[in-house]
């Protein structure tokens, strides 16, 4: 059982995780990718679409033919083909699949990034504990979600620092017309005065502003880490020229330099109600290469064992095509992939029927998934949040079981 103070200071589990330098990259495939054109192809079936399937390094397991590179590292991935969730619309599903449970107003459960930022990160770290890389300023329902409360009851300091694409970190470079000494003296004076104000007035607003200054100060010290231009050209070429590849490379670079959690998104391009196959012919090969480069890089750098990589969207796509060449929303039977920290290599869990309509083995929902991710990172999935005046909440409710088959 956790106490409130236990959550404010690093927990036992988080301590262990920190010692092991656990971290997580969430490749958020917003809009919801089709399982048929990725991890659970049904070639030759009426639902299969135009793309075939290819063998993978795991005997008897096939991926979409659009994923030839992932096929060669299938023995480093775990695939769950039996996700079965409830929400059918993006906003609700994004909310559910990033927080791990259904909403219970007026209480707001923190998102995965906020929980992991709290558990795996350090409040005084110059690198933000929760970084969201997403270059697309719009994105319909994802835009609405992005405007919401990510950190929930953990508090705003566990919210994400967002950048990517046109979202540069503004004003984090020291002004050129003052010396370093001047800059530091000004900051010391500001810190002294605002701290005094905060203490004298017991002002939460002042405390929040001080926290923001601390964050900016941290960002100033590590601004170069966020600069894509400073990454080796060869690395940038390997990850592909598109924004998602570039930002996934940046995510690797950031976790390599101490960021505990980075979420990479790219608007919500996977929501192909029209032109499904016309867009997936580009999106999936791009994703295939990015996953391959990331997992291979982490392995080569000795980081894969301690870095959980999650590749998922908010649901899957319908087995049947609509009249606009698209697949619609489908939470009944969909797939996702995991790799790295605490995750079995080469596991393919769950199954769907021959047309991909129903889960036939081992249905799992968001609670099972969150219990799995927390366990894989050495975090107690059932720890109780001790929130004064709140009902009882746990990281994962109802002691939902982790997916043991994918855990080491």
């Amino acid at each position, binding site marked *: 059982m956790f106490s409130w103070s236990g959550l404010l200071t690093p927990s036992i589990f988080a301590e262990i995780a920190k010692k092991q330098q656990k971290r997580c990259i969430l490749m958020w495939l917003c*809009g919801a990718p089709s399982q048929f054109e990725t991890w659970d192809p049904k070639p030759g079936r*009426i*639902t299969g679409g*135009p*793309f*075939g399937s290819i063998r993978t390094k795991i005997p008897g397991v096939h991926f979409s033919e659009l994923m030839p590179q992932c096929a060669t590292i299938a023995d480093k991935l775990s695939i769950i083909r039996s996700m079965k969730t409830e929400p059918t619309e993006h906003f609700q599903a994004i909310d559910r699949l990033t927080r791990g449970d259904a909403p219970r107003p007026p209480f707001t459960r923190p998102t995965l990034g906020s929980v992991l930022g709290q558990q795996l990160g350090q409040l005084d770290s110059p690198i933000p504990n929760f970084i969201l890389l997403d*270059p*697309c300023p*719009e*994105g*319909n329902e994802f*835009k609405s979600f992005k405007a919401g409360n990510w950190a929930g009851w953990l508090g705003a300091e566990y919210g994400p620092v967002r950048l990517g*694409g046109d979202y540069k970190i503004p004003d984090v470079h020291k002004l050129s017309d003052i010396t370093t000494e001047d800059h530091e003296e000004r900051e010391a004076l500001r810190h002294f005065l605002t701290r005094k104000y905060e203490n004298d007035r017991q002002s939460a607003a002042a405390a929040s502003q001080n926290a923001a200054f601390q964050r900016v100060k941290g960002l100033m010290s590590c601004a170069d880490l966020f600069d894509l231009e400073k990454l080796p050209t060869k690395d940038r070429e390997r990850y*592909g*020229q*598109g*924004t998602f*590849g*570039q930002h996934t490379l940046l995510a690797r670079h950031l976790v390599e330099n101490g960021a505990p959690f980075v979420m990479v998104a*790219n*608007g*919500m*391009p996977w*929501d*192909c*109600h*029209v*032109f499904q196959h*016309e*867009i997936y*012919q*580009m*999106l999936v*090969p*791009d994703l295939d290469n990015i996953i391959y480069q990331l997992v291979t890089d982490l392995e080569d750098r000795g980081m894969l064992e301690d870095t959980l990589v999650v590749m998922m969207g908010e649901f899957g796509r*319908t*087995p*049947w*095509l*609509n*009249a*606009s*060449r*698209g697949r619609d929303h489908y939470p009944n039977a969909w797939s996702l992939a995991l790799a790295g920290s605490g995750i079995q290599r080469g596991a393919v869990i769950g199954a769907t029927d021959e*047309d991909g*309509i129903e889960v036939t083995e081992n249905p799992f929902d968001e609670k099972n998934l969150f219990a799995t991710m927390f366990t894989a990172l050495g975090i107690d999935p059932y720890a109780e949040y001790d929130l004064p005046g709140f009902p009882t909440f746990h990281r994962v409710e109802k002691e939902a079981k982790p997916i043991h088959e994918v855990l080491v």
Partner: protein
Amino acid sequence: MKIELNKEIKLPSAALGVCEIPGEDHLLVSCFDGSILKLNTKDETWEELGKHGSYASGIVTCLDGTMAVSAGYDGVIQWHDLKNGKTFAVEKIHPFWSWQLKVSHDTRMVASVSGQYLCGGYKYEPAAEKDPSIKVFNTKTQELVCAFTHLPPVLSVAFSPDNRHLAAGNMMGDIKVWNLEMGRLVREWNSPDFTSWGVIKSHHYIGGIFDLSFSLDGNRLLACGMGPMRDPMAGNGKQTWQEFDWNADTPVKTREIIDHERGRGLMETLSFHPKGKVFCMAGRMAQGNWNTALFSNETGELLQGLDNKIRITRSTFSDDGKQLILTGAKSQGSPKDGKWSKFGSVLIYDVKDA
């Protein structure tokens, strides 16, 4: 001129291509399930003439209706002998889909266009092709006559009425015209009005020129698709055709669909009536009141628009001009009691007052 529905024949799989067999009450239809069907339009029965490994995207007849040629998303061209109903040659001609297959007016050549949209830049500009996207074959010998390069994906192709020129359009609105006798590029230009880049939701390109057709005098080239969208996943760009004086020193747009006559949705097919006074454009309706329409070639005005309630994939007038034949698909729908509904259609319209 007006069209009236004569009959709709429902097929188990979506239909992507159609052609007449000259002198017979049969059509050839290419389908999502890869099948090439020989469809008896009288008794509405069919037999399978061939089978592709993926969607069969195009079907044409040639050599006085003795031979048919099909192509598919398997990148394969198949040659079918219509006398004995056998597929006698199969060749992989593209590393990716054949998006469209057309036959020259003298039926001596067929052209197939291909190309995969792959990420080639920070904004997901399409990457350059690794294999020529346009391939032309001699129908008598089945040999490759020439191959042309373009920026993939190349979605549409058309032969000029005199069979001397070939035009092809791509996702980015680039149109190229080659002289087939000299085997060289003679014109190229771009129309920005068919392509979207996702301002919201998804930062990539989408759309393009989905069909091309020369006017019967060969002086003009028509292109169709839909106009730009902010949200590329909405599928609600304006229904669009544009006409070009392709042979001008610098090709110019001469006219386009009248704005107040159009709704929204992707237009996938263009075809001229044999007399050349009317052309048909059809596709999908996202908003508006028609997905199939007849236009005056003289004025560009809409003569008749109708809503088929399905997505139209291909249109062709019969050689005698008395019928308009459309293929298409409705939503596949979920199975009922374990059975899938027929979601493909062939629509046969009678042409009145031609």
